[in-house]
C-alpha cells in the first residue's frame, strides 16, 4: 500500500513540475550573498512582489554567504553557468568577472534609459566601469569605521576620540587599565576581515604612488619597507584582541559589541543595521581609521566600496532579466531596502529621514564628505597577493609565522602575478 501511495505521489509530483515547465513561464536566476536576516526576507519580499507584477516571470533565487559567494560565483562564471542577475563587489573583483566575457555591458541600457542612469550617486558607478564600459550598477555604498560603545568610553573617562594611531594605542591602553581586557576585537578567522584592516593601514601608511604601482598586476613588487611596518602595527593591534581572536568570526565579534561587551570594533556602515535591530542596542559613535603620524598616505580617505548587481550576457531571457534588474534598483525598492535593512544605498534620495535613523543619515554625510574612498584590499589587488597577506597576517596573529615570512610569501605571489600579467 505504502509503495503504491509513494508511486502515485511521485507521478503526481512529476506531472505537476512538468505542467509548471509547460506553462510558458520565463525563469530568471538570481544569485545573491545574503542568506541571513534581515536582507534575506527583504529579497524574498521583493522577488514575491516582482512575480506578482509580472506573472509571466519566475525568479529562481539562491544565496550563500560572503566568502562562499566569492568562490561560488567564480565557479558559476567559469563553468558558463552564469546567473541572469547577481550581486558583485566592485573594483578588481568585478573586473575579474568582467574578464570572463560573460558579463553584460550596460552601456546600451544606460544610454536608452537616462532617468535610470541618472538615479545613482555617480561616484559609486565608477568602480563598476572598466575601459569606458559599465558592467554593474551599485546597490549599497559602504565605508569602514571604528565604532565605539559610548557608555564604556565615558566610564573609562575617554573624552577625545583618537585621530592618530598612537592615540588609538593609548586609548586601548586606557581601556585596558580600566578593566577591559579586550578593548578591541576582530574575528580574525575571517580572512576578509583581516584584509579590511591591512587595506586601510597600507593606504594610510604608504605613499599613493607606491600603492598604485604595487596594486597593479604588471608592476607589483611589494618591496617597500612600509609593508613591514604596517604588519608590525597590525600585530601590535592584535595584542589587544585577547587569545581568542583567531578562532572567532566577524559576526560573533559584532554580536559581542551589540551585547555591550566590547568597547571598540572596526565595522562597515552597512553593519549599523545589526546594531539598530538589536534590543540590547548600545549607544554608539564612530570615527574614521586614525592617521599614522609618519604615514605618507591620505588619512582623509574612507575604506569601502559599493556592491551592485550585474547581468549575464548569455541570459536566455535578457528582457526579463533587465526588467528585474531595474526593479531591484528602483528608488521605490531601494527605499524599502533602507527601511528593512538599515544600510546605505547608492540610489539618490533613497536614504531619508522617513526610512532611516540618525546614524545612517550621518553615514551618508560621511561618505559624501570624505575626500574619496579606497577599495577593499582583497578587491584592490590580485587575489593571490591578498591571500598571501590575509593568511600570512592570520599566522602572524597566532604566532606561527614571522612578518618576514609573510612579506616573502607576498613578494613571491606578486612575482607570479607579474609574470602572468606580462604574458
Amino acid at each position: 500500500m505504502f509503495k503504491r501511495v509513494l508511486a502515485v505521489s511521485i507521478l503526481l509530483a512529476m506531472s505537476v513540475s512538468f505542467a509548471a515547465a509547460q506553462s510558458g513561464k520565463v525563469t530568471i536566476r538570481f544569485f545573491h550573498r545574503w542568506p541571513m536576516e534581515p536582507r534575506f526576507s527583504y529579497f524574498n519580499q521583493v522577488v514575491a512582489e516582482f512575480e506578482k507584477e509580472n506573472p509571466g516571470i519566475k525568479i529562481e533565487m539562491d544565496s550563500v554567504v560572503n566568502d562562499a559567494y566569492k568562490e561560488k560565483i567564480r565557479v558559476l562564471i567559469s563553468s558558463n553557468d552564469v546567473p541572469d542577475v547577481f550581486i558583485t563587489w566592485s573594483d578588481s573583483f568585478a573586473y575579474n568577472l568582467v574578464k570572463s566575457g560573460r558579463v553584460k555591458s550596460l552601456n546600451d541600457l544606460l544610454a536608452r534609459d537616462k532617468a535610470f542612469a541618472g538615479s545613482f550617486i555617480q561616484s559609486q558607478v565608477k568602480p563598476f566601469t572598466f575601459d569606458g564600459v559599465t558592467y554593474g550598477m551599485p546597490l549599497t555604498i559602504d565605508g569602514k569605521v571604528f565604532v565605539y560603545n559610548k557608555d564604556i568610553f565615558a566610564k573609562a573617562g575617554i573624552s577625545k576620540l583618537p585621530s592618530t594611531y598612537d592615540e588609538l594605542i593609548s586609548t586601548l591602553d586606557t581601556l585596558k587599565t580600566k578593566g577591559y581586557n579586550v578593548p578591541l576585537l576582530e574575528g580574525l578567522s575571517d580572512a576578509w576581515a583581516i584584509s579590511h584592516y591591512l587595506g586601510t593601514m597600507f593606504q594610510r601608511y604608504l605613499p599613493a604612488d607606491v600603492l598604485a604601482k604595487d596594486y597593479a598586476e604588471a608592476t607589483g613588487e611589494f618591496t617597500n619597507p612600509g609593508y613591514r611596518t604596517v604588519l608590525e602595527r597590525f600585530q601590535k593591534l592584535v595584542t589587544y584582541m585577547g587569545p581568542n581572536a583567531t578562532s572567532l568570526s566577524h559576526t560573533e565579534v559584532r554580536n559581542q559589541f551589540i551585547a555591550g561587551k566590547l568597547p571598540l570594533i572596526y565595522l562597515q556602515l552597512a553593519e549599523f543595521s545589526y546594531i539598530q535591530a538589536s534590543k540590547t542596542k548600545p549607544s554608539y559613535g564612530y570615527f574614521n581609521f586614525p592617521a599614522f603620524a609618519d604615514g605618507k598616505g591620505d588619512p582623509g580617505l574612507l575604506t569601502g566600496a559599493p556592491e551592485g548587481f550585474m547581468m549575464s550576457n548569455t541570459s536566455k531571457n535578457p528582457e526579463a532579466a533587465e526588467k528585474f534588474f531595474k526593479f531591484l534598483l528602483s528608488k521605490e525598492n531601494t527605499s524599502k531596502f533602507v527601511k528593512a535593512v538599515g544600510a546605505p544605498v547608492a540610489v539618490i534620495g533613497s536614504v531619508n529621514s522617513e526610512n532611516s535613523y540618525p546614524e545612517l543619515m550621518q553615514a551618508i554625510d560621511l561618505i559624501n564628505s570624505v575626500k574619496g574612498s579606497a577599495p577593499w584590499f582583497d578587491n584592490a589587488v590580485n587575489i593571490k597577493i591578498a591571500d598571501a597577506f590575509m593568511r600570512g597576517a592570520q599566522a602572524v596573529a597566532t604566532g606561527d609565522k614571522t612578518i618576514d615570512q609573510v612579506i616573502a610569501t607576498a613578494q613571491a605571489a606578486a612575482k607570479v602575478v607579474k609574470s602572468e600579467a606580462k604574458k
Partner: protein
Amino acid sequence: MVSRRIRSAVEPLGFVLPCIAVLGVFVYYPLVQNMIYSFFRFSAFSPEKIFIGLENYRMLLKDEVVLTALRNNTRYAFISVLIQVCWGLVLAAILEDRSIRRLAPVFRTTFFLPVVISVSVVCLLFGFIYSPIDGILNNFLNLVGLGAWARPWLGSGKTAIWATIAVSQWHSTGYVMMLFIVAIQKIPEELYEAAEIDGAGKLRRFFVITLPQVKEMFFVTSVITVTGSFLVFNEPYILTKGGGPGTSSITLAVHMYQSGFFKDMMGYASTIAVVIFLISAVFAVIQLTAFRSGED
C-alpha cells in the same frame, strides 16, 4: 552454430558497454583531461590556456603549503587508523560480547548515529562546541578544574588540525565499527565455545580468535580509512575556514580547491589533483595486490 558463438561472445559486451561508457565519460576522460591541464596555466574566467610544460610541477615542489598539507593528511591517516580502525574493532568486539548483548543495539545505534548526519552539520555543531566564548568544551574543562587546558581550539595553529581530526573520528568511527560487527558476526560460534572450554579468557579469545578472523576486514578498512584521509576536504574547509589559521590545518584537497577556485590557478590546482590521484592510486594498488586473498 557460428552465429551463436559470435552472439555469445558479443552479448556480454552489450551488458558491460553502458558501464564502460559511463566510466569512460565520467572517470577516465576527466582524469586524462586533468593530467593534460596540469601542464597549462589558465584562468577559470578565460578560455585561453598557456602551455608551460613542467612549470606547475616545479612550483609544486617549492610550495611550502603542499608540505604542510601532506603532513596534515599523514596525521589524519595515522590517527584515523588508530582510532577508527583499531578502536572501532575494540568497540565492535565489546558490543558483540555475550555479556552485553541485550544492551548492544542501543550502543550500536548510538555509535552509528553520527555517520548518518551530514558532515557539514557535524562541522557546524563542533564549531559551537569548540567556540572559545561559550563553547561547551572549554566550559566543561573549566567546570572540572582543567581550565588551564581550555584554549581557542580552532584558532591556534598548534591545535586546529588536531581539533579537526578529532571531529572526523567522532563522525566516522561508528561506520568502521559496523563493518567489524558484521565481520565478527560471521565468525563461527564454535571457535569461541572451544576456546572457552579450553579455558581462554575474553582478552585471549579476542587476540587468538577475533583478531585473526577479521584480519581481512582490518586491511580493507585500513586502506579505506587511509585513502579517505588523503582526500579529506569538508572538515578543514568548514571548521577552520579553508585550513586556517594561516595554512596550519590545510589538506591537499583544500589546497587544490583554493588554488583553483579562490586564487584562480586552475592549472596548478590540476597539478595538485594529480598528486592526490597518485597517492590514492598507490593505496588502491596496495589494496588490490597485497590483500587479495578472500571474500571480504
